[in-house]
């Protein structure tokens, strides 16, 4: 058989359950809405970095699962998160992406969050401290104590990232949630304070999971000339992909040969603390977060799904807060050369997922998306994606390879075991 007819093309591939997914999981409106409701509203999300709110009264705004969120640093230097929604008539309280409440606003006084609409004011702990013409309108029926902001679970963890969860009952800390997936980079990120030096965003016409998949699979080295020329050697092919509880994965490290690419140099001098020279670790966290440390620069991607075929990706680059200006410039150069919006790899990755998105729009026919490579869980094994979709299936109670059916834990567990001949070589 060479090229296939429609029936052959749409039949299940000659792979085990769990080794492919149905493309409708990347295009279906109902599934997208379920993901927001059942996953994003119940997961810890690293919404920003503490260096974006250095001083008391600094704030940052963002969105999780369509809910507007504000993160503020109080007078006590504690970082807290709230819904960025006014308890009066539901206006968005703060419209700027970031700033300080130290200065007053046209409707309000300094050191308060003020809703511009009718000038209700809140302190940095979310307490309502002022209702305009309160007694005239509410007499003794409603007072400031009744109309505080909705506070959200918030933790500063893992090198100063600010994590927020919309679910009061998540019942676990970020450390529990990470389940060991952050351990490989924790010594490097926790040694001294970090600082964000890069932020940009992309809105891409594809499903958010296609970006996460791309971060989870390295078989796409064939997309990147840079990876092939600086990577492909025995140590590279021995890099391990490991799964952790809650759907997270790690990609193990090796020493990158940056000198092999024209115009690139070793990053040894500016390695993050405790990181061997030119090493490269990657952490992919469920449901759509990536931490990527290439020697001297840390990158963090945060995915915000905007539709079944639309995702916003926020890219951050971080260095050490103690960097001299010259050190910082070098880190920025290293970061940008591969990962910047004009860098070698990022543009290629974004092109590829855009092209995938073009083939998986909401009315496209279902296709089988293969993720069945087994290579002893090393770099070109697709076990990272399989691990993710195992978790995804559990959260939505849908089979990733047939989303109309319920998730069958036993069936998928059997398939995610390594095939016998691969195990024998391990």
């Amino acid at each position: 058989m060479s090229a296939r007819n429609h029936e052959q093309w749409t039949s299940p591939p000659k792979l085990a359950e769990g080794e492919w997914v149905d493309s409708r999981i990347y295009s279906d409106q109902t599934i997208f809405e379920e993901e927001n409701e059942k996953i994003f509203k119940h997961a810890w999300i690293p919404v920003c970095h503490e260096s974006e709110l250095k001083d008391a009264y600094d704030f940052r705004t963002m969105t999780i699962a369509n809910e507007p969120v504000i993160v503020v640093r109080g007078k006590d230097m504690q970082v807290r998160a709230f819904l960025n929604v006014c308890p009066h008539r539901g206006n968005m309280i703060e419209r700027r992406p970031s700033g300080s409440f130290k200065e007053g606003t046209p409707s309000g006084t300094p050191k308060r969050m003020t809703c511009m609409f009718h000038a209700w004011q809140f302190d940095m702990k979310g307490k309502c401290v002022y209702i305009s013409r309160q007694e005239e309108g509410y007499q003794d029926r409603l007072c400031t104590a009744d109309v505080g902001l909705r506070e959200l679970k918030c933790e500063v963890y893992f090198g100063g990232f600010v994590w927020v969860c919309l679910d009061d009952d998540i019942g676990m800390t970020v450390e529990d949630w990470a389940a060991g997936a952050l351990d490989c980079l924790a010594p490097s990120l926790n040694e001294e304070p970090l600082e964000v030096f890069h932020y940009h965003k992309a809105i891409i016409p594809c499903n958010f999971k296609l970006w996460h998949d791309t971060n989870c699979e390295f078989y796409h080295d064939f997309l990147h000339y840079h990876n092939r020329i600086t990577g492909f050697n025995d140590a590279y092919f021995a890099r391990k992909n490991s799964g952790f509880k809650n759907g997270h994965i790690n990609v193990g490290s090796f020493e990158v040969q940056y000198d092999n690419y024209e115009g690139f140099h070793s990053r040894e001098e500016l390695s993050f603390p405790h990181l061997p020279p030119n090493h490269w670790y990657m952490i992919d966290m469920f449901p759509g977060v990536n931490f990527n440390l290439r020697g001297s620069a840390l990158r963090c991607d945060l995915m915000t799904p905007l539709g079944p075929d639309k995702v916003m990706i926020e890219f951050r680059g971080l260095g050490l807060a103690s960097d001299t200006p010259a050190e910082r410039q070098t880190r920025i150069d290293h970061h940008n050369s591969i990962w910047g919006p004009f860098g070698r790899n990022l543009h290629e990755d974004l092109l590829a997922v855009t092209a995938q998105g073009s083939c998986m729009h909401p009315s496209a026919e279902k296709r089988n998306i293969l993720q069945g490579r087994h290579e002893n869980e090393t770099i070109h094994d697709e076990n990272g994606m399989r691990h993710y979709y195992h978790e995804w299936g559990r959260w939505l109670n849908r089979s990733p390879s047939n989303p109309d059916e319920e998730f069958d834990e036993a069936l998928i567990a059997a398939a995610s075991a390594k095939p016998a001949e691969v195990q024998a070589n391990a």
Partner: protein
Amino acid sequence: MAEKHASTIEQIKDVIYKSCLYQDDLEWNSWLDMCSDDYHYAIRAFSPEIRADMEYMGGGLEYMKSLTQMLPKHNTDNSPLKRHCTVYKVEVADDGKSASATSSFVVYQTMLDGINSHVDAGESRLFLVGRYNDKFEISNEGVKFSDREVRLDTRRLDKGSHWPI
């Protein structure tokens, strides 16, 4: 003063416009031939999100040369980018040996292969808005770029680009 340097100012405007045409046509060698040996290029923007100045790309002449020479090795969005640039201000130093210029630009992208070419190819989109802050060395051999800062207003960069702006 302006009168004294009137012809230099015109010369500098010509140089900027000529460089735009080279960039539009992906004639990277000709573009970089207009630059001095100590040339530096950078794309920068202020982020109201992290409230900091950022650099998105940067390097000296050698780096820019290797970057442009490596382009054929990379998968890229080949949708043409065309600049509309207006030189707003040119200031020539008293001694006439250096100058600076501020230009405003927009870059349009005419879709070719970046998304689904059957649908999108041929459509022109606004890609970037910003300014060129240029510096020049002036000698008997003429005017050469010694520094270019591309200051972007646009920060939602979507797929981005491999091409210097």
